């Protein structure tokens, strides 16, 4: 039985897809059979971040509508064994997904994988609710910003009420806070919420902290999830996050202003 994890946020553009791609890749690199599903029907971009856009033939909607089999739609990752991608449709609208269809797909995948990651669309409406409905755990991606924190709290409300676990009265969905685009310099200056502020306001466990990083854009340009870039701060921070998901205790890093190394001071190079 796979563990189903939704990557969600309410607000758009906070780093859900970046995080879903990095964490799925990180889990597979740790030997876990992992599939990552794009629920952002109509606006798919997980395939771009994963670098498999030219290999998309069928998508989640085709499978649900019975136009293709699951095996035909799943894309095997080129770089990592054990990693598959199920893309979203670019042409259909989000009403093409049905709860029964999604349930069937997840049930089938559940037999073959250890982890199923669901990359949620933005918003708190149907599409986002469907992406979270069958989840066992949720990664709530939050930026240190008022609107993002408020939306994350709305999402926590939905996770507690509008999921299968909630409706069946089972153990609640396990909620994890993932803070992304964190900038320690601005926090230090008093212009950005601190990680303690966010944790205190939302009152859920912190699973990771990803700094604002140039490596993320570089990774998305190339279609290589940033966790592959183990020389970068964001890549290392995502690897730490994966370790914590696997139950390991890993100290936080990149939450304080980093002192420049001797080399970069001598040559004036930016931090990678």
């Amino acid at each position, binding site marked *: 039985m796979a563990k189903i994890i939704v990557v969600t946020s309410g607000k758009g553009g906070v780093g859900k897809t970046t995080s879903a791609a990095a964490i799925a890749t990180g889990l597979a690199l740790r030997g876990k059979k992992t599939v990552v599903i794009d629920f952002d029907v109509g606006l798919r971009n997980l395939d771009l971040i994963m670098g498999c856009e030219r290999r998309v033939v069928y998508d989640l909607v085709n499978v649900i509508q019975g136009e293709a089999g699951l095996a035909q739609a799943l894309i095997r990752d080129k770089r990592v064994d054990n990693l598959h991608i199920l893309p979203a449709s670019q042409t259909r609208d989000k009403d093409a997904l049905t709860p029964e269809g999604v349930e069937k797909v997840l049930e089938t995948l559940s037999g073959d994988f250890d982890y199923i990651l669901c990359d949620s669309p933005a918003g708190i409406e149907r599409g986002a609710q469907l992406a979270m409905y069958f989840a066992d755990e949720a990664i709530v991606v939050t930026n240190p910003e008022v609107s993002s924190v408020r939306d994350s709290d709305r999402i926590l*409300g939905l996770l*507690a009420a509008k999921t299968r676990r909630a409706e069946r009265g089972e153990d609640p969905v396990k909620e994890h806070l993932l803070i992304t685009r964190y900038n320690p310099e601005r926090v230090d*200056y008093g*212009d950005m919420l601190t990680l303690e*502020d966010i944790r205190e*306001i939302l009152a859920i466990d912190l699973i990771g902290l990803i700094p604002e990083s140039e490596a993320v854009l570089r990774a998305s340009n190339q279609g290589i999830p940033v966790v592959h870039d183990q020389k970068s701060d964001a890549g290392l921070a995502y690897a730490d996050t994966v370790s914590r998901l696997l139950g390991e205790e890993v100290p936080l890093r990149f939450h304080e202003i980093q002192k420049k190394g001797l080399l970069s001071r001598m040559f004036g190079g930016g931090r990678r």
Partner: protein
Amino acid sequence: MKLLDFFRGERKKSASVAKERLQIIVAHQRSQRDQPDYMPMLERELLEVIRRYVKVDRDAVSISLDKDDDCSILELNVTLPKG
């Protein structure tokens, strides 16, 4: 604001303003979480009825539902303007 900052005449840092605003917003959102779906509508309609008699602001009316063991109590608070 810290006392020291006050004497220095420093402006309040924007992050601490953000935190205070969020604490209020989140407390409000969470108090509404377990309420029945009809509550926002009920609150709007009550506001309309009150406004037929007195001119009040949107935030002058607040309602909440408290559950006891064997009954629920609907609490309505209306702040009326002076005079």
